[in-house]
């Protein structure tokens, strides 16, 4: 007999828990769901667009009745649970239906708060909470003219905007002087008010409601100062309260909400609770992101896996009024211990304020241009020290490097046909449609359904902004980003585990770290393989099957399944003999395209896989080795001609480049790694957009780090200046090793440095001679294991011979 799980509350938090549970274990429970509303589970946060006439009820259904049937979940819709017999473990519905449970999940949500003024119970006074309320409002808007919304918070403004779009004349009554004062400071609140007034909303600020007037139907509202206004519809939107009526009735410990621990368990161990009815560590939440985090943890414990903990959420807010971008998070008002950075451009309707405390973001409020909200929020939650980026902070992440989204990236201002993702040709309309019609909530969901930001990732911020402006305040990027779907662990946690637990192989690590899948997936296996190699270079078992094809075939796969071959050409210097050999080889294998690469090498394209070892042998015979143009590894060292030829050259940059390439080739990295050496500050080798750039000056060498010329152009940061060739080499090796050990797999140096801060890198490499020496030594040691030419090993050494030859030819 399966155990019985009963869910009370057919809403977003409860149903998300059920979905997470079914993902973990489909067969564990017989599941029964009770919902007081006569519908399936719908996306409550999209009620505002329904009211505004931008969406229909069908469009916001998350689980329709068919879903419950398909998943063998019994649904009692329109039945409210009125009692629970905890001794007998039975729930009782208002129509007498009884259901036994082994485990019970309480997700009763919250109730709107109704101000208990005289007349609050008159017909025509409603709240804004469910489909019924929306129907009431839509109905009223057809018959009546005047609406009053009490409450100038998030929900009140969304209701007011919706009613106005339905043709009503709407007055928003607010007790305070600032709209949305819990989410906005005075300046942003004023800008918002002005913009809403321009759209046609009326405001009564500082107005305290004394009574709702009318006899058999609402007729008006009277305030404490004696003023009266007429109204045919009054919407009370002054807040929500956790719905704990049932929990209190059955004697479950409640304070503001149902008290739960970090596993979402209530004081009755058989009863779990999630959602807006819950109080966790003294905090109740009314946004969807925390509820989903709770759902994930709760499902994990219901599935008896017992490894998740909910530790509370930091939340941010957005307003779902089309055409208005605003964002806030954290403590944006600040106090005497904080400092503000403010940017205000009233004409363009832009206001940004970031509150700093101890060089960390403590809060932020933005109006008009909120594209960097997600970024500030991330910096805030990660408690990143922003002193290194302080001067750029207000100009946003795009200012730190962006290939072209800068300037026109206010999601709300974009039209539906505007392209968001340039790699995959995904428009804004395509994303918003997928979010609403498929019920998507997370960046991962949107990526897999639409492919937006799924390739190069440069539009991630914009996609996140579109998700949050579509879902409103309910979207937040998740705090804890697991490495992939096979584990709960983050990259950081996995990296540390490899070191501390002496893990030397990808497959072994999955077993030790309780991977959910038998073999991992294409995301985690290459990462694990890399962590093994970088932590334990002498002992690691390098698994070719855990590497992407390019690193397995030591060539770059092309769109037609052929490969490209790039021999190493040290420092970009070649000679007639090498060129002749390359020309002969190109003839011999009928190479369709020969191209010079951006890194000063020669690329032979269109090579059949079975020809690779033959071609490599010919290249080896001519003295050339693998150029590693295919790997997460040292790619090329680009140089200029330097003082040997150039009349401006100050040092021998070519020789320095060759030296660096000879020392660093063959090293595996978290991502590709490029070096350049320029002979003078004219910087013809473009060293300041490389991962490690060296610029010669008359007195020595400037060392630059963290540049990128690709997805997001980012100029390097100056690490330091050194005077000798030996120093250049030691600093370069130390920097590479620090990056190798500290960055997450697939982090380029640019985002890594932005995350850890240049100060950290300087502390390790410039300010601490002993650490630098240790890092450099570790790199040199690792190189003794990996500086072997993979082409020679395969062309003549018999390594992986199965990789290249067909198994058989038939037919």
């Amino acid at each position, binding site marked *: 007999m399966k155990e019985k799980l009963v869910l009370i509350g057919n809403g977003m938090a409860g149903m998300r828990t059920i979905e997470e549970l079914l993902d973990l274990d489909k067969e564990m429970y017989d599941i029964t769901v009770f919902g007081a509303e006569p519908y399936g589970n719908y996306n409550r946060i999209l009620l505002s667009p329904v009211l505004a006439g931008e969406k229909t009820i069908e469009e916001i259904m998350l689980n329709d009745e068919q879903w419950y049937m398909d998943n063998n979940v019994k649904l009692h819709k329109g039945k409210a649970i009125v009692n629970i017999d905890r001794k007998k473990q039975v729930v009782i519905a208002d129509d007498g239906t009884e259901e036994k449970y082994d485990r019970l999940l309480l997700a009763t949500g919250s109730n709107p708060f109704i101000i208990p003024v005289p007349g609050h119970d008159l017909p025509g006074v409603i709240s804004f909470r469910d489909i019924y309320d929306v129907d009431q409002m839509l109905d009223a808007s057809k018959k009546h003219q005047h609406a009053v919304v009490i409450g100038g918070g998030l929900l009140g403004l969304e209701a007011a905007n919706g009613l106005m779009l339905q043709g009503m004349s709407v007055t928003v009554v607010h007790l305070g002087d600032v709209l949305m004062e819990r989410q906005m400071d005075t300046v942003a609140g004023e800008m918002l008010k002005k913009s809403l007034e321009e759209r046609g909303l009326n405001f009564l600020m500082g107005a305290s409601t004394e009574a709702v007037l009318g006899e058999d139907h609402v007729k008006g509202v009277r305030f404490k100062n004696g003023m009266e206004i007429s109204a045919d519809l009054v919407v009370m939107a002054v807040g929500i309260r956790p719905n704990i009526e049932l929990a209190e009735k059955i004697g479950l410990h409640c304070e503001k909400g149902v008290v739960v621990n970090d596993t979402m368990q209530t004081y009755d161990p058989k009863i779990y609770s999630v959602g807006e009815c819950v109080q966790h560590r003294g905090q109740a939440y009314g946004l969807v992101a925390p509820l989903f985090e709770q759902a994930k943890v709760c499902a994990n414990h219901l599935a008896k896996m017992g490894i998740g903990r909910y530790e509370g959420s930091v939340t941010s807010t957005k307003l779902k009024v089309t055409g208005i971008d605003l964002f806030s998070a954290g403590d944006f008002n600040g106090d005497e211990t904080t400092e503000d950075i403010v940017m205000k451009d009233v004409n363009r309707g832009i206001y940004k304020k970031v509150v700093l405390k101890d060089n960390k973001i403590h809060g932020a409020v933005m109006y008009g241009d909120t594209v960097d909200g997600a970024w500030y929020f991330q910096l805030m939650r990660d408690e990143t020290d922003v002193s290194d980026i302080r001067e750029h902070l207000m100009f946003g992440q795009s200012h730190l490097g962006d290939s072209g989204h800068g300037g026109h990236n206010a999601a709300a201002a974009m039209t539906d046909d505007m392209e968001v993702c340039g790699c995959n040709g995904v428009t804004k309309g395509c994303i918003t449609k997928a979010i609403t019609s498929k019920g998507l909530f997370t960046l991962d969901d949107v990526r*897999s*359904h639409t492919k937006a930001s799924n390739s190069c990732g440069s539009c991630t911020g914009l996609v996140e902004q579109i998700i949050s402006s579509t879902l409103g305040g309910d979207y937040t990027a998740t705090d804890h980003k697991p490495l992939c779907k096979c584990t709960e662990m983050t990259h950081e946690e996995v990296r540390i585990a490899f070191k501390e637990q002496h893990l030397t192989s990808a497959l072994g690590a999955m077993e030790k770290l309780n991977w959910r*899948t*038998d*073999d*991992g*997936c*294409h995301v985690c*296996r*290459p990462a694990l393989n890399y962590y093994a190699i970088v932590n334990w270079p002498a002992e690691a078992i390098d698994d*070719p*099957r*855990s590497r*992407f*094809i390019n690193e397995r*075939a030591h060539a770059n*796969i092309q*769109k*037609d*399944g052929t490969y490209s071959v790039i021999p190493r050409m040290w420092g970009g210097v070649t000679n007639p003999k090498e060129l002749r050999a390359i020309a002969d080889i190109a003839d011999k294998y009928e190479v369709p395209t020969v191209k010079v690469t951006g890194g000063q090498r020669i690329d032979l394209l269109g090579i059949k896989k079975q020809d690779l070892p033959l071609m490599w042998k010919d290249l080896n015979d001519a003295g050339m080795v693998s150029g590693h143009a295919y790997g997460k590894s040292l790619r090329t060292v680009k140089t200029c001609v330097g003082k040997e030829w150039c009349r401006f050259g100050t040092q021998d940059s070519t020789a320095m480049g060759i030296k660096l390439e000879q020392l660093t080739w063959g090293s595996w990295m978290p991502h590709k790694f490029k070096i350049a050496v320029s002979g003078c500050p004219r910087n013809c080798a473009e060293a300041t957009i490389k991962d490690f750039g060296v610029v010669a000056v008359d007195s020595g060498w400037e060392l630059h780090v963290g540049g990128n010329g690709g997805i997001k152009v980012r100029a390097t940061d100056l690490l330091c200046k050194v005077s000798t060739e030996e120093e250049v080499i030691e600093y370069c090796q130390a920097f590479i090793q620090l990056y190798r050990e500290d960055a997450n797999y697939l982090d380029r140096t640019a985002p890594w440095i932005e995350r850890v801060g240049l100060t950290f890198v300087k502390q390790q490499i410039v300010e601490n001679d002993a650490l630098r020496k240790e890092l450099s030594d570790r790199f040199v040691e690792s190189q003794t294991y990996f500086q072997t030419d993979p082409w020679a090993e395969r062309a003549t050494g018999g390594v992986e011979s*199965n990789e290249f030859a*067909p*198994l*058989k*030819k*038939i*037919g």
Partner: protein
Amino acid sequence: MADWIEVGVLDDIPKLGSRVVEGPDGDIAIFRNSKDEVFALKDACPHKQGPLSQGIVHDKTVTCPLHNWKIELDTGVVKAPDEGCAGRYDIKLESNQIFIAL
């Protein structure tokens, strides 16, 4: 009855790996998973004809090397949210020898 054609032995294919059989109508990818089960698919992803034999194999799935579509090895069906199907071939393992039927 299908004609079974012997194409090699299990040890010819690395665990979690794949080899190509050149067939009369194009390449066929033969996969071996961690449980030593074998599978045969047309070596072309339904998306943009990426060679599936070059992908990463995990459980009963291969991830296409070109754009990370995931294809079920036993059915050839593309995993949601992407859609499509790579052709599959019957395959059997008899005392370490692999046979496929065209």
